[in-house]
C-alpha cells in the first residue's frame, strides 16, 4: 500500500477470528488506521493497495465497488473515533439508524424502526423509544458513541472495525463503552478489530495484539504474551513509556468498597454525590497562588441558561509544589486555569498570585505580576504563532518585559532551548517544521523564559503520542526540580498526576469534590466520584486490569 510513492504500510498481515478481539496498536503515523481503512476501500484515490484481504474467503481488495458497498455496513461495521462528526447533525439519530438498516435489509419503514429501537436498547441507551427522535447535539459523547456502535452492528456484521473508539471520550465513559463492546462481542459473536494507541484499552479488551511501527508489523501475539514477555525492542519501549496508575489505586478502591478507609490530615472530601459544594481549602503556609471561593458563571443573560463552570472553588499552591487538578471534560478545571491566568473573568471570589489579586492589579503592578506566571497549553501547535520562528516565540516574553536586550536575548533563548533538550539551531524553524513533542518543549521553554514563580500547565501532554508524552513528563519533572517553580498541573489523567503532583484536587461538575496529598487521594479515595475515576482508568496490564474491571463493576451498582 503506498501514497504518492510514500510507503505508508508494507507487507502487513494479520487475521481476526469470529468472536475475537484483535487490537492493532502503534503511535500516530504507524499505519494502523490506513490498514483498517483499506479493508473497506476507504483510502484516498491516490493510494495504491497490493495484497489480499480475505473476509470469509472473499478478497475485499479485488471486489467490484457494488459488492464492496454491500460489505460496508453489512458484513463489516465501522466505529469511528469522533462520534459527533460520524453522525449527521440535521437528522435524528433514529432516522440515521433506520437508514443504516434499510441500506442492507429489505424491511418496511415500520419494521426498520422497530429494529432500530431494539438496537438502541441493545447498546444500553435508556428510554430507546424517546432517544429515537433525538438529534445528535442533544446527546452526550458517550451516548453518541453508543449510537454509532448501534449503527455498526445494525446488520449483524461478522467484523467490527473500531478505530480509536474511546479516544475522544472521558475515562469513566470509556470504561462503559469498553464494557459494551465486550458485551456485544460475547452476545453477537462479532470479531472486533480494535485500533488504538492506548495500552490500557488493549489490556482491557483485546485477546490478541498486533504491534505496528512505521508501516510494518513489529510483533504479534496473545495479550498476555505481549504484556508479560514482549520480544521486540519497540514493544518493550512502547510498554515502558505507558504511564498508568499503580496498584495502590486499585487497592484504594477495594478498601473503599470494604469501607476500610483511613482519613489522614489535610485530606478532605465532600460527603454527597453528586456534590453541591466544594471542599474548603486545606491550610496554607505561604502560598504562591491562592484561589478563594472562585465562582465562574457562563451565559445567563436574558433568558439564556447560565452554567456554573466553577462553584466556590478554593485552592492554593505553595512555592515549589505541584498541585494536580484532575477532572473530566466539563468539570471546570480549564475554567479554573483560565481564571488563574486572567483569561476568564471570575463571577465572584478571587485569585491571588503572590498576594496580589489578579483581577484588581493595574498598570505596572499587573505587568510585574505577569512576569511571575508561565503558561503551557494543551495543543502546542495552536499555542505557537505559525508565522513566527520558534526562537522569536521563546524570546517574546523576554522582549515584552524588557528583561534582557541585544545579544543577551539570543543567548538566553539558546540556553532555554537547551534546557528543554532542543538544539539551539532550531530557533529559526517554524512551528510546522517541528514534531509535536518538540513544539511542546518550545512552549515549555517560553513559559520558563522569565523564571516564573508559578507555572500553569493545562493538559500539556494529552495531545502527544504515548512515548513522547513520557519524555515530556520526564523533562517537566526535571525542570521542576531544577528551577523549583510552583505548578498548577491540570490533567484528565490520574496516572500523569500521580507521577508529578504532590497534592491533588479532584473536580466534578464545577466543584472540588476531594483534595489532599496525592498518596492519600489515590490510596484512600473518599469521594465516590474519585473512586469511579480511579477504577475507570485502564492500566496496561491484563491481570491488573481484570481486577480493576471487577472493582469498577461493583462501584457501578
Amino acid at each position, binding site marked *: 500500500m503506498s501514497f504518492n510513492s510514500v510507503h505508508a504500510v508494507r507487507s502487513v498481515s494479520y487475521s481476526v477470528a469470529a468472536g475475537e478481539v484483535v487490537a492493532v496498536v502503534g503511535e500516530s503515523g504507524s499505519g494502523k488506521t490506513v490498514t483498517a481503512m483499506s479493508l473497506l476501500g476507504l483510502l484516498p484515490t491516490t493510494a495504491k493497495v497490493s495484497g489480499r484481504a480475505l473476509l470469509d474467503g472473499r478478497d475485499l481488495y479485488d471486489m467490484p465497488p457494488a459488492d464492496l458497498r454491500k460489505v460496508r455496513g453489512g458484513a463489516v461495521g465501522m466505529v469511528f473515533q469522533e462520534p459527533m462528526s460520524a453522525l449527521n447533525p440535521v437528522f435524528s439519530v433514529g432516522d440515521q439508524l433506520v437508514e443504516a438498516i434499510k441500506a442492507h435489509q429489505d424491511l418496511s419503514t415500520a419494521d426498520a424502526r422497530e429494529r432500530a429501537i431494539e438496537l438502541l436498547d441493545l447498546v444500553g441507551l435508556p428510554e430507546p423509544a424517546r432517544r429515537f427522535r433525538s438529534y445528535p447535539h442533544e446527546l452526550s459523547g458517550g451516548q453518541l458513541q453508543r449510537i454509532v456502535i448501534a449503527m455498526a452492528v445494525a446488520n449483524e456484521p461478522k467484523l467490527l472495525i473500531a478505530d480509536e473508539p474511546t479516544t475522544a471520550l472521558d475515562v469513566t465513559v470509556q470504561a462503559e463503552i469498553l464494557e459494551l463492546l465486550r458485551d456485544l462481542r460475547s452476545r453477537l459473536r462479532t470479531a472486533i478489530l480494535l485500533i488504538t494507541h492506548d495500552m490500557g484499552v488493549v489490556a482491557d479488551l483485546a485477546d490478541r495484539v498486533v504491534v505496528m511501527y512505521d508501516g510494518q508489523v513489529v510483533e504479534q501475539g496473545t495479550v498476555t504474551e505481549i504484556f508479560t514477555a514482549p520480544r521486540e525492542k519497540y514493544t518493550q519501549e512502547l510498554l515502558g513509556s505507558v504511564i498508568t496508575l499503580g496498584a495502590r489505586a486499585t487497592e484504594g478502591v477495594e478498601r473503599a468498597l470494604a469501607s476500610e478507609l483511613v482519613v489522614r490530615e489535610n485530606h478532605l472530601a465532600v460527603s454527597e454525590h453528586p456534590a453541591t459544594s466544594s471542599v474548603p481549602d486545606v491550610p496554607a503556609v505561604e502560598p504562591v497562588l491562592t484561589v478563594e471561593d472562585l465562582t465562574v458563571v457562563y451565559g445567563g443573560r436574558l433568558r439564556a441558561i447560565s452554567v456554573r463552570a466553577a462553584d466556590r472553588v478554593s485552592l492554593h499552591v505553595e512555592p515549589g509544589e505541584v498541585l494536580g487538578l484532575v477532572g473530566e471534560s466539563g468539570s471546570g478545571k480549564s475554567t479554573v486555569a483560565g481564571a488563574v*491566568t*486572567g*483569561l476568564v473573568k471570575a463571577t465572584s471570589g478571587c485569585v491571588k498570585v503572590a498576594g496580589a489579586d489578579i483581577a484588581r492589579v493595574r498598570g505596572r503592578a*499587573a*505587568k510585574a*505580576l*505577569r*512576569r511571575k*506566571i508561565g*503558561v503551557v*497549553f*494543551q*495543543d502546542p501547535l*495552536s*499555542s*505557537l*504563532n*505559525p*508565522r*513566527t*520562528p520558534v526562537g522569536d*516565540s521563546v524570546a*517574546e*516574553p523576554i522582549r*515584552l*518585559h524588557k528583561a534582557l536586550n541585544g545579544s543577551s536575548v539570543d543567548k538566553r533563548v539558546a540556553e532555554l532551548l537547551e534546557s528543554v*533538550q*532542543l*538544539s539551539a*539551531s*532550531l530557533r*529559526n*524553524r*517554524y512551528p*510546522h*517544521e*517541528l*514534531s509535536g*513533542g*518538540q513544539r511542546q518543549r518550545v*512552549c515549555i521553554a*517560553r513559559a520558563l523564559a522569565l523564571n516564573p514563580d508559578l507555572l500553569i500547565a493545562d493538559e500539556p501532554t494529552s495531545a502527544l503520542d504515548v512515548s*513522547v508524552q513520557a519524555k515530556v513528563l520526564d523533562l517537566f519533572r526535571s525542570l521542576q526540580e531544577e528551577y523549583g517553580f510552583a505548578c498548577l498541573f491540570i490533567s484528565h489523567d490520574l496516572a500523569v498526576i500521580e507521577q508529578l503532583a504532590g497534592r491533588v484536587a479532584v473536580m466534578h461538575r464545577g466543584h472540588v469534590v476531594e483534595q489532599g496529598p496525592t498518596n492519600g487521594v489515590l490510596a484512600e479515595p473518599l469521594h465516590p466520584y474519585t473512586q469511579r475515576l480511579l477504577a475507570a482508568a485502564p492500566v496496561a496490564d491484563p491481570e491488573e486490569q481484570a481486577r480493576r474491571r471487577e472493582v469498577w463493576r461493583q462501584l457501578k451498582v
Partner: protein
Amino acid sequence: MSDPLPLGGEVTPGAARSLPAALWRAIRRDAWTLTCAIIVVAIVLLAVGADLWVAIEGQDLNENIEALGPDGLPAGPLGGVSADHWFGVQPLRGIDLFALVAYGARVSLLVGLGATVLATVLGVLIGASAGYIGGWWDRVVSWASDVMLGFPSLVFMIALGAVAPIEFPRQLLLIVVLGIFGWPRVARIVRAQVLSLSKRNFVSASRVMGGGTWHVFTRQLLPNLWAPIIIVSSLTIPSMIGNEAALSFLGAGVLPPTPSWGRTISDAIDYFETDPMYLIFPGLMLFLITLAFNVVGDSIRDELDPKSKGRG
C-alpha cells in the same frame, strides 16, 4: 537527547519575512509570475511615462483627420496601425489610440490604486478592531458593512457623479467614493480572520505573558493577517480599475476630455462592427492589468505562507 528531526539534509528556507522578499522569491520561482510582474511593471511605466512615450511616437491627444479614410474610419488595415500610430487611430476624429491608452492608464491606475489603498487601510483598521475588541463596536461595524454591501452603490455613484460640482477633481472623488464602498469587503475578511486567530492559544499565551492590545495586534495577529490582506487587496486593485472603467463607461466617471479606458471602451462599442481594433486595444489592457495583478498577488500570498511549498 533531542528528538530526531523529520527533515533531512540542509535547513529548508522558511517563508519570506517581508513583502519585497516575498515578491522577489515569487518572481524567481515561477516564470508565469515573472511574466505577469513584467506586465504590471510595463503598464505602470506606460502610465507614468505617458508623455515621454507619446512624444517618442510623435503624436498627441489632438484630432487628426488626415489619419482617416474617406468613410471616417481609420485609413489602412487593423484600424490604422502603422509606424506613426502604434495602436491605430480613433474613427471619425483621428485621435491617436496609443496616446489615449497611455494617458488612460494613468487615470485607471491612479484611481484603482488610490481606491484600493483607502479601502484596505479602512478595512483593516475597522475589521481588525471589530474582531479584536468585539462588543458593541463589533455589532456596529458588522451592521454598517452589511448596509454598505447591500447598498446599490453603482446607482449612488452615478447619482453622485451627476450632482458633484464640476470643479471638484473627479479622480479624487472617484478614489474616495470607491474606497468608501470598498472597505466592507476587506473588513469582513480581516474581522473573520481576527476572530478565528483570537481563539488560538498563541494569542492567549501572549496576553497571559502581559502583552497589551497593541502588542498582541502587531506581533501576533498582524503577521497572520498579511496573507489575507495582500490577497484581498490584489483582487481589489483590478476590481477598482474595473469599477472606474464601468463608471466612466456609463458617463459618471472622469469627464471628457480626460482620457480613461472606460470612456474609450464606451466609445469603441459603437464602432465594434466597423473598427474592432478600437475596442481591442483598451479592452486588452484592462484584461491584462486585471489578470497580472491577480496572478502576482496570488504568488505573493503563497510565498508569505510558511507552510506552502510554492506552486508547481
